[in-house]
């Protein structure tokens, strides 16, 4: 990344993205959403499991968003992933603090 300042920029060539990938990812998101709704509206699992499972589904869904829709799976995303990860870390610490130390 160091010498972008000077090198004559060669536009990154595009690896063709398939529409299919996004549609599959979208389908998975819908499924996860439905699953979360089912967890809450029907008694399929014990109550203590509802929140962790729901959160798990949400996290998977978000990862799908980030890595397919938001293109974090592409090359050169190292810094982006680093910063989002750090943001998530600070976010988790803050929420934990706010919720568990009232």
């Amino acid at each position, binding site marked *: 990344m160091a010498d*972008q*300042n000077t090198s*004559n*920029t060669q*536009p*990154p*060539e*595009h690896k*063709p*993205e398939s*529409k299919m990938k*996004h*549609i599959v990812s*979208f389908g998975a*998101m*819908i499924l996860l*959403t439905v699953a*979360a*709704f089912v*967890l*809450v*509206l029907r008694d399929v699992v014990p*109550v203590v499991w*509802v*929140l962790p499972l*729901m*959160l798990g*589904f*949400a996290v998977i*869904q*978000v990862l799908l*968003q*980030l890595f*397919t*829709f*938001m293109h974090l799976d592409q090359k*050169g995303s190292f*810094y*982006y992933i680093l*910063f*989002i990860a*750090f*943001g*998530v870390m*600070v*976010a*988790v610490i*803050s*929420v934990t*603090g*706010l*919720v568990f130390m*009232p």
Partner: protein
Amino acid sequence: MAHDSVEIKPGVHLETATFEGKNKVMGFWMFLGAETVLFACLFGTYLALRNQTVNGPSGADLFDPVLVAVATAILLFSSLTSVFAMMAMNKLDKKGMLFWLGVTVLLGLSFLVLEIYEFIHYIHEGHTFMSSAFGSSFYALVGTHGAHVTFGIIWISTIMYQAWKWGINTETAPKLFVSSLYWHFIDVVWVFIFTLVYLLGMVG
């Protein structure tokens, strides 16, 4: 540096073709990192205060699963259409891109209408911004998200106009790309809102 020499052809990542574009995309990811923490603080506030209803209605009394399911579906779908728009942009297919962006904006608008309807409904039920700490924190969190959606709709519409007038080039492509990132991010936030606000509220 702006290089006039970037060749505009299908399959080129126009959004990061110029130096400005690269900076913009990276800067925007950092902004999203900041937004993550921003929303986390609102979530933390909401979770800390959500049981403080002060004799008002609680989440379990208020939330309607059908409404939330519809809103979620709309927003998820708009995220997909936004991806389609970006794929069209990469193929330099201006018409296709504008079409998908149009769909995205319309879906966003319908989400907004649904949310406004929902808020009006709650206010009739006695759940207002001022009624309790639960009310304040609920509207602060969901309202901030709604404000982001509103801003996104205005933003994307503006850039649609610019793309329509100026075409898809190294100037408009980064803007389009960044606004689509923003739109996905709004969807990401919504995933947590429907999980931690609505579904958790229904569990009690």
